């Protein structure tokens, strides 16, 4: 076999509180597509960022063309022939296609530094687009192109760098079937020219369609590299999930409890289609799915942050065809957002203000604050939720992640919400606080509160939920109950197992 164009040995990267990569080995040969598979947070993006020059690994070696290299910034990565196409496009909206392809590497007029030769810029771009079979006018402004065309421009840009290692991070996430065909055609073209492609995917069926080899990452570790021909999808799913989790001991079935929240045929153009779900009083319902599957968008639509185009929501008996946060709160709905620091809390304000923020009109109908009452309420929740803070006047920004999350919870308890949506309730908080938050959630459910819990943490979904909905590409693809709630089944549906094969 010819020499690998890229070898990564024992790559380790530590972030505060997480070991993102733990002695990962990875290699790539010219002309192959090597698929990188793993759950959210398995370390795929971090691994690729060490190649792109966005992160430097703490230890381990990277060998390109048999030479050990250190990649400190994007320029060095480019110089080594490594190009990355990020999930969020890095195109500049108001520049033309050609200007984007050659950004920071424009052909120079008369060889003079800084002077752009626009004739050659367009001629060279036309040539590159033509060899790739991409029919996009190099003079059109990028913001006027569709997503698929922008994607192809990204590919053209990467290849104009003479990339021999091309990294694509979920390139098909936003493409239609026909556009995917076109992209795969271009990838075949690249393979025949000896370019090695690292392909991060969340679609299991793509492994067989486009991959030559596949590596599975789990919790920052590589759990194996296989020839695509030698491995089936079920094995890959097992590898991704790995660990066994304790089954939920008291998974309850409450088919007769009153419905607290019903979402029917909810549709938001390009984001959500035909979403149907029910959460009953006293139930914890898990909402699983991959990042980008539309879970947070669904929560925002239900709460009334984003409008929806059609469908309806029945919240505690009230039919709503449009809503907004203040109406939702008045009716008894609370949302604990994914990003609590920016969306859930006012970090520079004290604990007491954060606790009472969402219930000011309920607590003080006369619009005049009663300091003693406010204080009593804040102190009660600090005690009940065991929020570790010296006093209720402490700025929330100084508390730990777990205690911040408890403050957000206190805020919604103070509104006496009957339905709570938790978006990633324990992300980034330590094990002890996590167990406590889980306890509070169970207690609330026992008191009859309906809980919809969005989580990317599969063990959390499996151990907490009474029922589970799996979301994929903006809609709910499966409802799971009882025995069916396990990690393999969930990830299978989340990654579209059984589709398009």
């Amino acid at each position, binding site marked *: 076999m010819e020499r690998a164009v890229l070898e990564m040995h024992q790559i380790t990267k530590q972030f505060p509180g997480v070991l993102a990569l733990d002695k990962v080995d990875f290699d790539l040969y010219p002309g192959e597509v090597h698929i990188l598979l793993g759950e959210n947070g398995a370390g795929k993006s971090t691994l690729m960022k060490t190649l792109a020059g966005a992160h430097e690994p703490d230890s381990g070696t990277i060998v390109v063309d048999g030479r050990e290299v250190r990649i400190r910034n994007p320029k060095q990565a480019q110089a080594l022939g490594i190009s990355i196409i990020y999930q969020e496009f890095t*195109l500049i909206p108001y*520049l033309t296609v050609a200007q984007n392809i050659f950004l920071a590497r424009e052909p120079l007029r008369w060889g003079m530094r800084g002077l752009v030769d626009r004739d050659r810029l367009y001629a060279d771009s036309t040539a590159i687009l033509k060899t790739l079979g991409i029919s996009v006018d190099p003079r059109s402004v990028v913001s006027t192109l569709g997503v698929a065309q922008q994607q192809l421009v990204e590919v053209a840009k990467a290849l104009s760098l003479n990339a021999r290692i091309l990294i694509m991070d979920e390139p098909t996430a936003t493409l239609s079937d026909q556009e995917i065909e076109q992209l795969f055609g271009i990838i075949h073209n690249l393979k025949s020219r000896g370019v090695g492609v690292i392909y991060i995917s969340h679609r299991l069926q793509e492994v067989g369609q486009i991959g030559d080899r596949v590596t599975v990452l789990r919790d920052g570790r590589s759990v194996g590299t296989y020839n695509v021909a030698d491995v089936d999808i079920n094995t890959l799913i097992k590898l991704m999930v790995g660990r066994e989790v304790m089954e939920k001991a008291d998974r309850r079935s409450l088919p007769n409890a009153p419905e607290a929240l019903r979402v029917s045929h909810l549709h938001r153009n390009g984001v959500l289609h035909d979403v149907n779900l029910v959460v009953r009083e006293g139930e914890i319902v898990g909402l699983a799915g991959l990042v980008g599957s539309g879970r947070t968008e669904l929560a925002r639509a239900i709460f009334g942050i984003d409008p929806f185009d059609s469908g309806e929501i029945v919240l505690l008996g009230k039919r709503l065809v449009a809503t907004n946060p203040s109406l939702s709160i008045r009716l008894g709905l609370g949302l604990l957002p994914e990003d609590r620091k920016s969306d859930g809390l006012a970090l520079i304000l004290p604990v007491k203000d954060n606790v009472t923020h969402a219930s000011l009109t309920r607590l003080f109908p006369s619009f005049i604050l009663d300091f003693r009452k406010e204080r009593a309420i804040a102190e009660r929740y600090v005690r009940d939720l065991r929020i570790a803070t010296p006093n209720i006047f402490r700025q929330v920004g100084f508390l730990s992640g777990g205690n911040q999350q408890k403050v957000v919870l206190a805020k919604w308890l103070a509104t006496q919400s009957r339905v709570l949506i938790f978006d990633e309730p324990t992300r980034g908080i330590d094990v002890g606080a996590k167990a406590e938050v889980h306890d509070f959630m169970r207690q609330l459910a026992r008191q009859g509160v309906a809980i919809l819990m969005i989580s990317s943490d599969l063990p959390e979904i499996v151990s907490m939920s009474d029922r589970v909905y799996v979301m994929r590409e903006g809609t709910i693809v499966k409802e799971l109950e009882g025995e069916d709630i396990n990690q393999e089944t969930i990830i299978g549906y989340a990654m579209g197992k059984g589709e398009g094969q």
Partner: protein
Amino acid sequence: MVAAIKRVPGIVYVLVALIMGFGWFIPGFFTVSNFLSVIRQGSVLAVVSLGATLAILSRGVNLSLGGVMSLAGVVTGVLMHRGWSIMAAILVGMATATAAGWLTGIVIAGAGIAPFVVTLGMMSVGEGLALVISGGASVPGFSNAFQVLGQGYLLRVPIPFWIAVMAFLIVHFILRDTQLGVSIYAVGGNEDAASLSGVDVRRCKLQIYLIGGILAGVAGVVLASRMNSAHPSGGMGFEFDAIAATVVGGTPMSGGRGGVVGTMVGAAIISIMRNGLNMLGLPTPWQMTIIGMIIIGSIALDALKSNR
């Protein structure tokens, strides 16, 4: 840039309508002498506006232009009063403005502080130093040779106009034909993406404010020559008119698109507004009110357009 060209026609109509409207109502508006006077006054604004546009295109803003103008004018004036040659005085005045621009750029690019804050500070520094150097009073009365710069004619057209044309052509060339120009649009369009693509964002920002300083220097010297007096607060307010010219000319505050062609039309609109309202006998406070409303109107229009 295509977007800029598409946007220009709209405001060109506004400009034409303005000229026609004033011409209809104001006797003496359609006279050669009035037009020459508008051109002479508008040229200074045009030069400063170029600097404002560069900053705004990169999603920044430059509030220091007026203060630096005052400083450049006063330095030049004081040196001439001390018997320096015109050439040497202008050179040092320009160098002062360039240094101010360079310093602004270094702080913005190097320390990563918001341009609004840094240039707000530099506005105060420029005006403060101008007051210190001039002793708080205006520096009046220069030689005829110096006054030619702001009051003279070349081919029967005021010299400030030619200076503005030169400055425009240079900045337009930078934006269209140099890597710096592409980088400015890239940084304004998506700074992170530009950086990931290998654009040297810091150098780009430094150059933007450096060029801003140079342009403010040119404007300050021409202004002093036109007025035959360097006033320590002579440049005051120009930074805001320059921002207005940019925005009215179709470059949004969010940067990334637009260009200096529109800015020149914007500067013309504001200068003609001033001149026309003046001739109508409207007192300055009313002129300010009306021009302010036009600025808000054009920004609102831009917001509505981009939200659609």
